[in-house]
């Protein structure tokens, strides 16, 4: 299976797929998709076990109506990720989700409501719209996280500096 990227297709030579910020990628049951440095950003992992298709998105902000950068916003990246996974053989009805991130690392005087909280709320809302159940989540708090999604199991490994590493 080819790995989706917005840039020209690269010849795939590794099963490790790096997902940037405001980015998403889809892999198969041999892939390990990773993304680092989630603070208030939210990571959305989708998995179709039967098809062996896994997808991971790293979104910065909750809503992006009218914006062209679909990967930056929760409400636009979820449908884009689903569409890409379906084109790789996944079924929207079989998809299950895991969430991580959306922390409130700092409370700034200039902000009304934590972007982290809003990101998590937007992820719940958008996944509900597509009837995708959330199997597990590790969200909120005041620490950062790095993620790795195992395409063979759907396990989401969450690493943080203060809390250590665990799997959801």
């Amino acid at each position: 299976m080819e790995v989706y990227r917005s840039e020209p297709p690269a010849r795939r030579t590794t099963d490790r797929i790096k997902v940037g910020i405001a980015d998403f990628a889809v892999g198969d049951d041999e892939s390990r998709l990773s993304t680092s440095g989630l603070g208030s950003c939210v990571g959305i992992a989708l998995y179709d076990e039967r098809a062996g298709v896994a997808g991971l998105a790293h979104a910065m902000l909750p809503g992006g109506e009218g914006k062209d950068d679909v990967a930056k916003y929760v409400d636009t990246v979820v449908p884009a990720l689903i569409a890409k996974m379906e084109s790789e053989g996944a079924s929207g009805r079989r998809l299950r989700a895991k969430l991580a991130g959306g922390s409130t690392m700092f409370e700034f005087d200039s902000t009304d409501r934590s972007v982290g909280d809003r990101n998590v709320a937007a992820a719940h809302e958008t996944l509900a719209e597509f009837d995708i159940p959330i199997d597990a989540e590790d969200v909120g708090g005041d620490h950062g996280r790095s993620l790795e999604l195992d395409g063979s199991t759907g396990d989401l490994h969450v690493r943080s500096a203060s809390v250590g590493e665990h799997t959801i």
Partner: protein
Amino acid sequence: MNLDVHALRTFSQLAHSGAEKAAWSLSQLTGIETLVNVTKVELGTAADVECEFREHDFVSVRIGFSGGIDGRTILAFDRDGAQDVVEAIMPGVEAGDELATSGLKEVGNIMLGGFIDGWADHLDTSIDITTPTYLDVDSDGPLDDFSMGDDPQQEDDHVLVFRNQLETVGKPVTFYLYMVPTAGAVETIVDTATDSEEALPIETFTAFSEMIAEGAEQASADISAMTGTEAVVDVSRLSFVPIEGVPMQIADTTRVGVVLEFTGIPSGYIAILFDESSSERIASALLPGSDAGEAMRQSAIQEIGNIITSGFLDGWANRLETTIEISTPRFVHDLGPAIIDPLATELAQTQDYAFLIDSTIRTNTDEFTCDIYALPNQVELRKALDQLTAQPV
């Protein structure tokens, strides 16, 4: 020469798509899957660029280009990265021997050729490239014999540098693709992108860049005074980056430091980060002889964060004839990109690109290294830049 945010965005997008072509070319040639991590448009001096190459011990390949636009482009690897690339295209060949050198030149030729093609496509022009020159520590600097305009290049002349950080997916190798256009080339590209009403003379950006450098010098002097260890400013840079690129350029390691918010003209966020061992040493330097607990160490780091921020920003306030208020420093001990991510995200709600100010201060003895990242809000930064433009040079 005038610049504005629209022109900088165009530059950034052009450089990014050019870098993607270059990454794709490398993947085709070597099978090493490569991604473009961050694209930055930087305003620096020729001396900064030369210094960066010396300090990183880069192995690099330089190519000149001319035609539709003129300038110079350089592909730089750290030494291990260069060896990995050589190994991929010519298994068994040792770095440094002639075959390896010609292999790297070929890689440079293909990647930089791809990069320049991207620009030529966009500008709908043709650009010729020279044969590649291999540069090692002992040879010429990357910008030797390069000049922005008609006059010979001076050390402190400002250059616009497009700096792309690329990363391989398997074994992590980071390398950089630089492009330094001549002033004429910048004008050509700017003409296609600038909204003249909003454009500011490049001297304004230069003045701002100098103001940042002075702030870093003051912060460094304050650290020296506080810790009793001579500290120097290693890097001081002003760059223009897509907002998501701000956290992405930071290494995924655990950092200790403080985050502050500043308000006034301009307002924004500052993070002052140490690696863990640096933070231990700096806390010990500030708390000599005492067996300080964690709480005392935290407050020592907060205190130094306060001092550095004041040193860094006071000069801005004087120069801009404004007041800049600083919030209480919040202590942070977390993954580097995760610390910067919420700051970038705050700005991302109102802007797609950011001016990133980054400075590194370190001691000569490598006792500690401190990174300062400042992210001004674009609207207020604009007011600050207008203020600078209005000042007599």
